[in-house]
């Protein structure tokens, strides 16, 4: 396990690359969900104004 994490002495580079990839993709997904939530709330508010019942 430790040997695997060390990546033959290149651990810092390899995990630095994989770690930032996970963070970047995660950040994009979070941003996506938040943007969609905001847009949905706005669209619903507008729909209620237009066809208020």
């Amino acid at each position: 396990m430790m040997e695997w994490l060390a990546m033959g002495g290149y651990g810092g580079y390899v995990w630095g690359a994989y770690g930032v990839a996970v963070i970047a993709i995660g950040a994009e997904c979070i941003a996506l969900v938040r943007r969609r939530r905001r847009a949905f709330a706005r669209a619903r508010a507008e729909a209620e104004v237009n066809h208020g019942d």
Partner: protein
Amino acid sequence: MRWLYRYASPATFYPVAGALAPWFFVAAALLGAAGLYIGLIAAPTDFQQGDAYRIIYIHVPAAWMSMFIYVVMAAYGVLFLSLNTRLSAMMMSALAPTGAMFTFLALWTGALWGRPTWGAYWVWDARLTSELILLFLYLGFMALQAAIEDPRRADRAAALLAIVGVVNVPIIYFSVQWWNTLHQGASVSLTASPKMARIMLTGMLIMSLAAWLYAIGASLLRVRAIILEREAGAEWLQGHVDGKAR
């Protein structure tokens, strides 16, 4: 031609995108897990680079996607300018952030790969410089679109930028052949047999497929948000925004 216009309407595409997106994410996650297993565990170490070469399993898919997404974006730009379909402009905008993310990843992982192998995080060779220009093209595209208030005009300006900027993509791809670069040539190409061991190649292709499916899923979700943003108040949206926000 009529079917094209039918599917090119946001009202038709909104539910289709919503139904498709989760499947792309599931497939991307499964393939990504398989690719990571091959890349980090199953594949052997490399004869000259040791384990540092394992960065290839993110670097190459990210670099391929960064170029491919830009070309697709420019294609939507052409569609929008020629057919004036609103959905094309929305798809174009939906792709840009994902493309920028992959471009950043290609540069970042490349730097972390360059240091242990070449001896430098960054050099100003043609391949690296043109990929950096690609990042600025994506950022410029997004900034330009956000800067112009009238969405119609914003789309037209952004589409023009995307189309003009597409000349940079072949420059990136062929830079290692056209000029002396520190960056090595392509290991995988359409014209020559791959210069990689079978299992390494398999892992890299699986990761690339995963990245591709992820990009489709992410852009479908984003285009839904863009449709909501732009069509808010439209009659057809009524049925979609009733009930709970998901």
